[in-house]
């Protein structure tokens, strides 16, 4: 088995819709398993606790208790709380049959979402007008 120095040089990942695959490049040149050096296969070293860390874009956790805070517990930026309120109002009004007012709050929700900066780490682009 290869040493664990610089695992980024011989581990790799890929995924399907539900799962993540971790593979390891086979570095043994004299393998008895019929492996060609340089091919990838499943990790065959000793199991490592918390050996994989993945960072993902995630949906928010469902709210199940009405007293939990949306920002500290669910990670929703506090600047988006008014957007949630607009959404709720639009749906309530829609169910009450007041479609015009519902549309007003729906539009306000859409605008507030589109204006929200996506993420702090994001790269900002120049807005070049189409000539």
């Amino acid at each position, binding site marked *: 088995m290869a040493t664990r120095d610089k695992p980024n040089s011989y581990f790799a990942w890929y995924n399907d819709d539900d799962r993540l695959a971790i593979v390891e490049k086979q570095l043994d040149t004299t393998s008895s398993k019929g492996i060609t050096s340089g091919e990838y296969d499943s990790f065959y070293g000793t199991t490592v606790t918390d050996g994989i860390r993945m960072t*993902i874009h995630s949906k928010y956790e469902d709210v199940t208790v009405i007293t939990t805070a949306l920002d500290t517990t669910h990670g929703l930026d506090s600047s988006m709380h008014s957007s949630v309120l607009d959404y709720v*109002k639009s749906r309530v009004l829609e169910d009450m049959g007041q479609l015009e007012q519902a549309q007003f709050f729906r539009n306000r929700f859409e605008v507030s979402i589109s204006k929200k900066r996506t*993420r702090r780490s994001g790269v900002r682009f120049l807005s070049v007008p189409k000539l």
Partner: protein
Amino acid sequence: MTVKDIISQVEMVYGRQSHTYIMQLVNDALLEISSKKQHYTVSATADLIKGQRWYDLPTRTIDIIKVEILDTSTNSRYHLIPKLVDYHSLLKGDPDTGTGDLS
């Protein structure tokens, strides 16, 4: 702001509402925001298991930003690993059985 605050504000204008109903609407709002903005980032860890190729993604995953492997040989740091694009270099193709070819 809590869901209770939202319920209070809605009830002040539109009268008494079911709390379960408002909570469901809040969850719908969160789902819509996360699908449109994709700015909620979380990390999760899993054990790296001998002979196992496939690992379940967290159920609320939208997409994967990065994957790291724990380097146990030195000072237990996580190292970023690349996404595999050349599938032809997979040994014996993709067995898709949840276990590796070698186990």
